[in-house]
């Protein structure tokens, strides 16, 4: 371990204090969201469940993309690995949800470590290409190895935990796990670990000069990202109770990137907002058109061309402008 300089020790409490507000906000949001099944029908609750789960997945992608500056095009593979492992353990070995889930999450971490190792020496555009190849590899195995994975037909019969088998109880289950995961992710982001990840994003050379191995930091990022993507994968498998290669495909990975970029790559909650927009948008638009991929592509183009920092960035800029104006009036 590198000795932590004195000044850093002094700064830690301040950083913790600054975490109190968002954590409190999240707890409040959780309480509010808990009452949702009393307000909405099964369809609405289901949509919110999916949004929460994929929102967590998008935030886990942003640990790579936003915090560490690694644009991955293979993040669906991590989600899918966890879901497939859960399904296979349940179907073939008769394991319960809670028996299979830890193994599934561990599998997601393991595949993330493999991804990190194989992409360790690539950066920029090359990194994007390696992760694309990684994602296609997992997809290819899942899609082709049909004797085990069911191929394009996918795997059915994923069993939820007995206590949470109804749509509303599973919603609560997902809500509290996603909530806890987000709090954990937020605390990680604001810790020394998160600081180091941002360090290798912004100035890898300086971090290397300070004695931090860029490869190690990347591995850490992949592990954190993989763990929470694995959690999301387990929850997702339990929610849909079915898994097919499309969950592992590039389109799914790109949808994750869309959530991240649309919501705001430089913000913690941005990808969550992105997930809300993407999933609610798709659900709403599916009533009128089948051209979801076209719309997704157009949105991606527009955000890249005009949307600096996504929705979260826009909101931040707007709130800063309003604050400035209020302050201006007060003076």
């Amino acid at each position, binding site marked *: 371990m590198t000795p932590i300089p004195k000044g850093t020790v002094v700064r830690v409490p301040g950083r913790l204090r600054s975490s109190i507000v968002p954590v409190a906000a999240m707890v409040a949001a959780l309480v509010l969201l808990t009452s949702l099944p009393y307000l909405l029908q099964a369809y609405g609750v289901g949509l919110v469940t999916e949004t929460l789960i994929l929102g967590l997945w998008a935030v886990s992608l942003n640990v790579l993309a936003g915090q560490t500056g690694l*644009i991955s095009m293979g993040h669906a593979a991590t989600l899918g690995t966890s879901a497939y492992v859960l399904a296979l353990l349940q179907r073939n070995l008769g394991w319960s949800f809670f028996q299979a889930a830890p193994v599934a999450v561990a599998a997601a971490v393991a595949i993330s470590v493999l991804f990190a*190792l*194989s*992409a*360790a*020496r*690539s950066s*920029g*555009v*090359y990194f*994007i*290409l*390696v992760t*694309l*190849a*990684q994602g*296609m*590899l997992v*997809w*290819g*195995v899942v*899609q*082709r*190895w*049909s*004797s085990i994975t069911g191929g394009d037909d996918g795997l059915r019969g994923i069993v939820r935990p007995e206590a949470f088998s109804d749509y509303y109880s599973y919603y609560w289950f997902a809500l509290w796990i996603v909530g806890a995961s987000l709090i954990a992710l937020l605390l990680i982001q604001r810790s020394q670990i998160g600081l180091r990840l941002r360090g290798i994003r912004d100035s890898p050379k300086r971090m290397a000069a300070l004695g931090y191995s860029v490869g190690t930091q990347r591995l850490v990022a992949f592990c954190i990202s993989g763990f929470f993507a694995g959690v999301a994968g387990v929850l997702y498998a339990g929610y849909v109770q079915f898994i097919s290669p499309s969950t592992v495909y*590039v*389109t799914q990975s*790109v949808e994750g*990137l869309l959530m991240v*970029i649309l919501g705001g790559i430089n913000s913690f909650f941005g990808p969550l907002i992105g997930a809300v927009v993407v999933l609610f948008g798709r659900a709403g638009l599916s009533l009128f058109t*089948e*051209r*979801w*991929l*076209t719309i*997704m*592509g*157009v*949105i*991606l*183009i527009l955000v*890249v*061309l005009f949307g600096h920092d996504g929705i979260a960035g826009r909101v931040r800029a707007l709130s800063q402008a309003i604050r400035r104006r209020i302050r201006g009036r007060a003076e």
Partner: protein
Amino acid sequence: MQIGQTILNGLTYSGLLFLVSSGFTVMFGLMRVLNLAHGAFYLWGSYLGLVVVGATGSFLAGILVAAVAIAVLGLATEVALFRRVRGNPVAEVLLTLGLGFVLGDLALAFFGGNPEQIAVPDLIGGSLDLFGITFPRYRLVLLAVAVVLFVALRFTLVGTRLGALIRAGVDDAEMLEGLGTNINRLATGVFVVSAALVGATGVLGGAFLGVHPGGDIEILVLAVVVVIIGGLGSLDGAAIGSVLIGLLVSVGSVFAPEFLYFIIYAPVILLLFFRPRGLLGVAN
């Protein structure tokens, strides 16, 4: 003679892969632009070829129309989209990705989801006996076209002033501009030629592999793999990568169909670990 058949299959597939990946890799070398809409360009070339060949009965007309139309599409996207984010590779990649999704989905909307096949003209159709192997004549023609294209591109790159300009741009684009070359125009030219090439290849490939939704991502990912192996930006690398992947696909689908994709992608990932810029990749 199954092995001979398999190898010949693989080599003809390599020919198609080279046709797809050559423009892609030269474009990357020159402008560091990774066009992830390349597969969608291919798919639209296929569908346009399908329509034109169906309407006119002329294979050549199909190729010409597809080449011109995709060249125009390439020019439009280059001017309207890519130039706005030049110098930001990640934004460029995401932009081309978005464009690829739009084009792929619109192809599905216009042409439906049924797999189609472009008819091969009689002149180059049918099959041929080659050392005891019966083999479709068309595939051999495709391989020949790829070899001719390789020779032509290589001659252009090595033997002409235009080729020297392109290689100089790959080495140091800013310096080349400082000597009076309009690098944007050069890049646009290369991009348009690369688009025309992939449009025409769409027709050739559509008569080989058929035309179907999702074919865009399939071909894109293969092109990506080919150029990663060979090294982004290297024409010779694209040729080597095409032959390797073509043979792997052919041998793999005979002997280990369940792990075909593993056989294709695992070596790529390994190679990138040991040689992050591929076999013959251009330096930064």
